[in-house]
């Protein structure tokens, strides 16, 4: 994509944040020092499930440096219960600390405040807790049984949401099918584990009834009302500030920790109180992606068209009482991936177990949906004896069908999936690889290639949750921004979504610079969100790849308000019609006489100081605020169809691997990605996000797993056991782009950030199965550890030996 020479958009502009971060000058939450700051340590449950009989802080409170402490009972007295965002079968009295019982290993049940974290941790060891251990519900299918141990007896069940969505006459489609195939898939628990853990500092000034929270929570718009409700404070008395955020990926949010810090600050007489998760706490108890089980059944006609699909899904939400069903709802919006499948049944089960609460995590549910679907595509092609790429092509939604609405109402606004595949095959040298594979097989080596294509829908529509909640607690999608030409002509931008590595400061400045005709240097985008000055709403935050879908609209909307006013003011001062003026080179000037104009500084002088030179009906100031909402968001219709997310990027991944049958090791040979996120604002940002997300998908496929034993003990609680891929394990991912602009976003952009993480696991398992095709191995569990691969190879070899 060529950018015109005067345009900032489209250029790989170096990121201004990169200068700050590469010199170590970022300001992350734990870098913010406050005088007399106190530190929190949390006592966490050693049981997966137990009644709390007694929590005795007395000995701990005697320890050196300790200021005060807090138990779940205290929290129960001092705060309002936290209510689930999605109604569950019974209201649970949940607080910022475990109340009455603990429901997962690592659940915080008491807090100690001390002058240092060292001393706070010393004191934790003196807290006496009496538990009555209870049997744990660990396996999600077993947890659904009537006699399963219940996390919350008042609910009478562990099933939070169970429903069946019939989009069309599915049974009719299966009735006339030439082929039917049913498969079961599993996904493990994993998480993006941002390198900076969750943290916050709170100052609760009781005299002024003012609570200030600094936190790297990535969804301040949602955290604010939870904190306000819990503490009984009006929003107007809370100020929420987000500094630089060291990675988010969805799961950096936990209102409970903000409440704990606020309460302890209040108890300590308004001292600044800092809580920072340590890595073990982060891995045990922040947020995991749901593990799950999915039965997928597809009906085909004789020519290889998919007629319909039945999906039965069980999402293991862990002890997620506050924000369940997110994974299930996003799967519902992505049931048919890039394929034209006319009818679908979705049976959804959202189940509680005694594990870490689930929640948002790069892709949220879509990696599992894509895994099952793209694995199924390979199996179906195999059953038909068709080439798996040809089979996919046959079923893709074609470009001329765009915008396309799938059976569940999900919108694919744009895309050319066949075109994406066309670019992918040469990128990975598909034909050449097939020849190499054949030669290798003759030598007894196991080379394989896997393909997966994946939709990457972005910008969540809150009304989709009406499907699981039956009530309208929020709807639509949005973000807010402010653009102000300051008194000296410099430009300040505030954006609700501060980003956590996505380069929003640079990207927003590119947009504003073009819109207001100024060099990028003249545009300052605040790296901080501050609820006292930044416009915000419930949707505000950094999630759902929403920059392209809502943030750009907010930035542009605010800039255009200012632009309109600049033109109007300049027209008045220059005595020229506004339509004869343009914004360029830091001026508003005559289109035909570039030396006839006013600089932004001159206009700002009038707008802020020389007020009597303004038109008499013009409000002083040069500030624009804009709350943008895409108008294509809808609410579920009578057939329960909804646009869960609004703009669909897509990607095709191909990976070649070699499997060592003796060690079970999987080596990635080549990796190729063709990505389409519509118009590209800054190619550096897009490439970085795709590469990073792909690495995360590779981690999920081969390394990462939160495994629990039968008692509900988590086996991976440090980075020694929870394996993130390093620079050696991640290959050089080759990339190419296709640009199909969205017809619905202001600049044609679509979301980017989650994408790579969605098809990568499917591509890798497909490749490993393809490599082991001569043996006939099948893998339904991730990650593909060497042991798991080796065991399947042994099994396949044994069954071969047993054959007559």
């Amino acid at each position: 994509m060529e950018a015109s020479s005067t345009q900032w958009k489209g250029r790989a502009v170096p990121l201004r944040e990169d200068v700050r971060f590469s010199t170590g000058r970022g300001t992350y939450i734990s870098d913010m020092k406050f005088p007399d700051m106190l530190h929190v340590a949390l006592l966490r449950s050693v049981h997966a499930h137990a009644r709390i009989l007694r929590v005795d802080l007395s000995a701990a409170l005697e320890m050196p440096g300790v200021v005060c402490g807090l138990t779940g009972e205290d929290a129960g007295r001092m705060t309002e219960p936290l209510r689930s965002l999605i109604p569950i079968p019974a209201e649970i009295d949940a607080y910022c600390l475990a109340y009455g019982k603990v429901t997962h290993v690592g659940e915080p049940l008491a807090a100690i405040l001390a002058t240092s974290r060292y001393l706070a941790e010393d004191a934790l060891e003196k807290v006496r807790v009496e538990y009555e251990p209870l049997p744990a519900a660990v396996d999600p299918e077993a947890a659904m049984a009537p006699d399963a141990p219940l996390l919350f007896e008042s609910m009478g069940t562990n099933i939070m949401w169970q429903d069946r969505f019939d989009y069309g006459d599915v049974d009719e489609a299966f009735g006339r099918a030439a082929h039917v195939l049913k498969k079961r898939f599993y996904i493990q628990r994993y998480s993006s584990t941002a390198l900076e853990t969750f943290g916050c500092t709170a100052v609760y000034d009781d005299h002024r009834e003012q609570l200030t929270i600094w936190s790297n929570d990535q969804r301040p718009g949602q955290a604010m009302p939870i904190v306000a409700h819990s503490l009984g404070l009006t929003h107007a008395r809370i100020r929420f500030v987000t500094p630089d955020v060291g990675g988010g990926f969805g799961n950096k949010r936990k209102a409970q920790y903000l409440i704990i810090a606020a309460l302890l600050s209040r108890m300590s007489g308004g001292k600044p109180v800092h809580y920072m998760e340590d890595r073990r706490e982060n891995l045990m108890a922040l947020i995991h992606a749901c593990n799950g089980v999915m039965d997928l059944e597809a009906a085909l006609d004789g020519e290889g068209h998919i007629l319909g699909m039945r999906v039965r899904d069980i999402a293991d939400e862990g002890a997620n009482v506050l924000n369940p069903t997110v994974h299930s709802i996003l799967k519902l919006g992505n049931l048919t991936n890039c394929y034209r499948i006319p009818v679908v049944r979705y049976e959804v089960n959202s189940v509680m177990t005694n594990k870490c609460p689930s929640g948002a995590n790069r892709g949220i549910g879509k990696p599992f949906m894509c895994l099952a679907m793209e694995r199924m595509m390979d199996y179906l092609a195999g059953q038909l004896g068709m080439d798996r790429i040809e089979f996919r092509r046959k079923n893709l939604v074609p470009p001329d069908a765009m915008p396309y609405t799938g059976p569940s109402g999900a919108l694919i606004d744009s895309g050319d999936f066949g075109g994406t595949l066309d670019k992918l095959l040469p990128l990975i040298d598909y034909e050449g690889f097939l020849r190499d594979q054949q030669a290798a097989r003759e030598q007894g080596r196991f080379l394989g290639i896997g393909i997966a294509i994946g939709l990457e829908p972005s910008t969540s529509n809150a009304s989709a949750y009406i499907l699981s909640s039956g009530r309208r607690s929020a709807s639509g999608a949005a973000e807010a921004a402010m653009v102000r030409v300051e008194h000296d002509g410099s430009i300040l931008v505030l954006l609700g979504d501060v980003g956590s590595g996505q380069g929003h400061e640079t990207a927003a400045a590119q947009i504003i610079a073009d819109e207001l005709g100024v060099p990028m240097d003249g545009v300052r985008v605040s790296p901080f969100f501050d609820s006292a000055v930044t416009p915000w709403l419930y949707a505000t935050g950094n999630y759902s790849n929403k920059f392209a879908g809502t943030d750009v609209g907010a930035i542009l909307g605010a800039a255009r308000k200012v632009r309109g006013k600049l033109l109007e003011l300049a027209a008045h001062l220059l005595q020229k019609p506004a339509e004869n003026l343009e914004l360029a080179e830091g001026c508003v000037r005559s289109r035909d006489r570039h030396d006839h104009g006013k600089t932004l500084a001159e206009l700002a002088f009038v707008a802020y100081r020389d007020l009597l030179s303004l038109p008499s009906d013009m409000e002083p100031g040069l500030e624009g605020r804009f709350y943008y909402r895409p108008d294509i968001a809808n609410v579920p219709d009578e057939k329960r169809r909804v646009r869960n997310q609004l703009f669909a990027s897509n990607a095709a991944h191909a990976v070649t691997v070699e499997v060592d049958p003796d060690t079970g090791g999987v080596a990635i040979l080549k990796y190729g990605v063709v990505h389409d996120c519509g118009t590209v604002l800054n190619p550096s940002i897009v490439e970085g996000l795709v590469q990073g997300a792909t690495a995360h998908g590779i981690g999920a496929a081969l390394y990462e797993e939160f495994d629990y034993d039968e008692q509900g003990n988590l086996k991976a609680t440090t980075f020694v056991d929870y394996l993130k891929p390093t620079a050696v394990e991640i290959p050089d991912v080759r990339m190419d782009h296709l640009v199909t602009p969205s017809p619905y976003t202001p600049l044609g952009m679509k979301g980017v950030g989650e994408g790579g993480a969605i098809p990568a696991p499917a591509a890798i398992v497909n490749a490993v199965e393809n490599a082991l095709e001569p043996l006939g191995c099948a893998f339904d569990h991730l990650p593909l550890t060497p042991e798991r691969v080796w065991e399947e190879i042994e099994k396949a070899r044994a069954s071969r030996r047993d054959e007559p």
Partner: protein
Amino acid sequence: MTDASTDRRATSVTVNGRRCEAEVDVRKTLADFLREDGGFTGVHVGCEHGVCGACSVLMDGEVVRSCILFAVQADGHEIITVEGLGSEEAPSPLQQAFVDHHALQCGFCTPGMLLAAVDLLKHCPDPTETQVREALSGNLCMCTGYTGIIRAVRAAAPQMKG
């Protein structure tokens, strides 16, 4: 501030060429000392058990993990943190290459990556891609997939010689 009964030592460390002195609890990690007593917040704490590499600093010219060293062990030694490599106004060639190649996103792993790369280039001025990957494999990045980082280190290598 801290328990009087614990063992405390006067500790003096040269950080980025400047003396940094404090009486510290012997159990205080070097990472906490550099951040809290020295104000070098470019030292990032990512795991505190010596795995992620975010807290890496140079001790007497060699990359080490400051979360699994005690501050008292650095007494009399020279430490370089990311702040000592260059500034926003005058970044080192390696830092400039990180910007040029967008070798970072959230910036949390970056200081450790840079210092691990400095250590590599000292021993291996013209590294292959494999050598860079192996040398940086003790530093986790959750954002970039490492691609930009590897490009940046290789691009900066010629300018970091000598």
